[in-house]
């Protein structure tokens, strides 16, 4: 469990970025953090792997205070994929990029080989393994970043804007991949402005604004709350707008395919 207790965080220049945050993220859950720009989403998640330490209050991972551990120690269990892939990639080959974390954490050769083979297949990167990651397209670079973090099998995975620069096909792959992680008992935290993607993912939602947590709840509860959506500067998913617009409020489909089925059924009845 990830637990924020009365967490405040001030930037070095004194500006307040997080204000009295109390939050519990259970193990084996998918949580999305949403809010307008500057709401404090990235600042919040940087506390989970110790990149930032709270000015006051406590952040605990499995009851361990993050202040007592280094970023490297925490990162062993908390993998974080950053928004900008170009901020991460540096190695001469995709293979070395993926091995970077595995070598830093000093895993044994057998484990490294096993995990490398697993992620290279999972992200369909085999054909790129001996070329520079910097020569890949935006979507491929993102996959290399994901592979390089998932390689050491962290228990908690934080994805900062994972759908940016991804086409619809890749988004679907990512969606299935996150669900697969959930099945494999991982805790996944997603920061995203891609509301359509989140509606299909159906995570628990934490809404933030101005460094505060505004509301926590399931996707349906949050995204159907128009007042809340306006408050945190988010436009609800199109499916909700369409179905509510035509007066259907009980059965809210998750995907376009589901929407077609619901509309067909309505026509038939």
């Amino acid at each position, binding site marked *: 469990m990830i637990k924020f207790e009365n967490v405040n965080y001030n930037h070095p220049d004194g500006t307040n970025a997080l204000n009295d945050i109390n939050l519990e993220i259970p193990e084996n859950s998918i949580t999305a953090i949403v809010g307008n720009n500057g709401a404090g989403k990235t600042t919040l998640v940087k506390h989970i792997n110790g990149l930032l330490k709270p000015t006051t209050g406590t952040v605990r991972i499995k009851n361990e205070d993050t202040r007592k551990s280094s970023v*490297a120690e925490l990162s062993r269990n908390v*993998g974080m994929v*950053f928004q900008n892939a*170009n901020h991460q990639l540096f190695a001469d080959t995709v293979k070395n990029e993926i091995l970077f974390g595995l070598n830093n954490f000093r895993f044994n050769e057998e484990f490294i080989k096993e995990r490398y083979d697993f992620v290279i297949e999972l992200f369909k990167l085999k054909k790129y393994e001996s070329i520079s990651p910097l020569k890949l397209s935006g979507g491929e670079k993102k996959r290399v970043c994901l592979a390089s973090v998932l390689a*050491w099998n962290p228990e908690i995975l934080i994805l900062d804007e994972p759908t940016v620069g991804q086409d619809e096909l890749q988004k679907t792959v990512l969606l299935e991949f996150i669900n697969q992680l959930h099945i494999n008992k991982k805790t996944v935290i997603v920061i995203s402005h891609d509301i359509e993607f989140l509606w299909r993912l159906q995570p628990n939602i934490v809404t933030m604004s101005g460094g505060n947590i505004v509301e926590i709840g399931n996707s349906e509860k949050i995204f159907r709350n128009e007042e809340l959506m306006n408050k945190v500067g988010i436009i609800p998913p199109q499916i909700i707008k369409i179905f509510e617009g035509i007066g259907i409020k009980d059965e809210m489909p998750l995907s376009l395919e589901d929407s077609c089925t619901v509309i067909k059924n309505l026509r038939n009845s």
Partner: protein
Amino acid sequence: MQFIANGFIYRKSNSIIHKLDPRVKLLISIQLFTLALLVSDLYNLLIIFVAISIFSLLAKITQRLLRTMIFAAGFSMLILIINYFAGYSLIYSVQIALRFISIVCSTSLFFLVTSPDELEYVLRWFRLPRDLVFAFVTSVRFVPVILMDTLQIMDAQKSRGLELEKGNPIKRIKKFVPILVPLIINEVIRSGELAEAMESRGYGISKKPTSLYSLKLANYDMIVIVITIISFSSIILLGY
């Protein structure tokens, strides 16, 4: 790193110094810089420090200038030690070290109170080539951006288990490769994109483009110029 960098980055403010014409700010900075180079005893160096302090108080940048001083103090300690072990007296070594801090602070003062836009006007006023001015001002303007990039890259690599603080000095230097490679590549990509964006907005079509703004000295600026020139000349004429 952010702590030190903030000692060199401009921030908007409403102080009387910020409101000065950028040419006047440059004049003050050059005068302080020149004096720091010319004076040779501790007493006079102290006067320069007092002048810098008054200037920073009026500009409300004392805290940030202190960061510059802390940055310069590290190097000046090195200068002091080298001079002392090279056979110079302790007093002389201290003077050289303090002179270095004064030079850095007088330069920093100008950049702390002058926006990149103002800097551009000043350089254009000197009739320097437009491309040169643009390249210089853009590099100054991008300092905070590059700093942010560096911090984000460091965060990304630390999250993959990179421990910059551990190991002997050679190992530590090697650990900066994962920071420097993405940083350089990002900046090269950014400069290419910037060049394309500038060209697509007509940069380079005209050799003498028009400008909405022009520099004009106010009465207030004239008074400051007279005061600073009199002070500077008096110190020089009195043999500092």
